[in-house]
């Protein structure tokens, strides 16, 4: 059978899925591209797992796999947030020429 931590994690998973469906359904199609790049950045959270594996005392294989994971996940985090920010800055309401 599953031990208690696994049940706790499963509970979190199911609840987070419900929250995800609720809030994402409210995102208008206008913002679907920033939603994708922004959620890419959020899935870069894998970086915290990668940091722990790369940075703790480990065998060389685990350290280097962890290092590569840190690089990929950080590209996701930094690239994702920056490009989303760049896109969102372009969405403007009523520029001067409208009037």
């Amino acid at each position: 059978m599953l031990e208690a931590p696994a049940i706790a994690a499963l509970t979190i998973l199911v609840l987070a899925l419900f929250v995800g469906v609720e809030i994402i359904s409210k995102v208008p199609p206008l913002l679907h591209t920033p939603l994708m790049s922004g959620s890419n950045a959020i899935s870069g959270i894998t970086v915290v797992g990668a940091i722990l594996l790369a940075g703790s005392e480990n065998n060389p294989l685990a350290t280097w796999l962890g290092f590569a994971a840190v690089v990929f996940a950080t590209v996701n985090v930094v690239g994702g947030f920056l490009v989303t920010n760049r896109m969102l800055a372009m969405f403007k309401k009523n520029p001067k020429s409208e009037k």
Partner: protein
Amino acid sequence: MSTTLIQFAYLVAAVLFILGLRNLSSPRTAALGNRMAAVGMFIAIVTTLLVQGVVDYPIVIAGIAVGSLIGAVAATRIQMTDMPQMVALLNGFGGAASVLVAGAEVSSRISANDIPEGIVPAAIVASVLIGGLTLTGSLIAFAKLQELMRGAPIQYPAQQYINALIAMATLVVCVLLGMDPLNLETLALLTGLALLLGVLLVIPIGGADMPVVIALLNSYSGLAACATGFVLDNSALVISGSLVGASGLILTKIMCDAMNRSLANVLFGAFGAQVAGAAPGAEGVDQRTVTAYTPLDAAVIFSNARSVIVVPGYGMAVAQAQHAVRELTNTLVENGIEVNFAIHPVAGRMPGHMNVLLAEADVPYERLVEMDEINPQFPETDVALVLGANDVVNPAAREDESSPIYGMPILEVDRAQHVFVIKRSMNPGFAGIQNPLFFKENTMMIFGDAKKVVIELNDAVKNY
């Protein structure tokens, strides 16, 4: 003590992610939402760095520095028209990180002789499988979008059977690894199979179906992070991964609904391949002719118009015509004409592609109208200007039951008083389906590059 602190920091980060995503529900708060999520990530990373267990700082800092540099350069250099490629790559990197973390964890447990129990072996399998196929699937999607390889579906004899065999072999290896999760050879074998599956799953999907593929891979990258969270017993990964997984799944569903096709049909239907093989002039190809008009002819119609709806498609992105479109819009608005944009959910190569391009060209977002909202307005509209869109305005979807796209929701441009279609040639669109719109009495074709024609049109309207 430090574990309590780090758990608390992860909770704060998760709350900030949720609030950030919630702020994406309006363009007014979206930028703030993105920053909130970024702050959440910063808190999670800094706390992780400061917690006990990290002893080798140089390698971690080096990894973060290299990743930040690549990410920052890519994010600031990328053209808005290339955004689908950027998102495809980011999806792939997310998958890669999950595979690597799972591999590192297994290797670390082998050294410590710490045999995984409970749900962990299954989570290792899921991380490697989903992460691996997300990586190569995304790379293929990138190559198709970047036109490094043909966009058309790639098919070979007995494709479905070969794929099914490989999928079954993968399943067997999954079970083997699940039973003996600390076996590095099995882990490597599963990684190889997952990478192969990613390639095989995406090569038979056509370029026009990329919005669905990108949304699905986006979801997979989240699910891979979620599985990795179970491997490491890390709630931050589980929460964030499932948020992203849910987001990608919703987008996938919206894209499929907008094409009136099931996900299975998109993934395995090889849409557009059958026609690609047909010889020109083969049966079913329309032999009727259309009359080509010039931008000057169009200017006459525009001078009498009071309302115009522009329908952008992938052709606008290819021609980089968004700024020229904005100029034309300015001229029309100055002449007292009401101009709106009709955005089909699958226009372009990724969800929301057209909105980003038009926003880049300073078109205010109130003018970008969704399909359901704008369709009732076409009958009262004087001119519909179709710019590099094809299948999403094809009335066959409404009228011709034998058409492959019958039942797909379309923008009903043919109901407008006049329709201008700007197109490079009479070649049918990507799906290879003839468009009866081009032969309608109220339709006028203008042939040429979208950007060039729009600039000429703008000059003609100005000087009329």
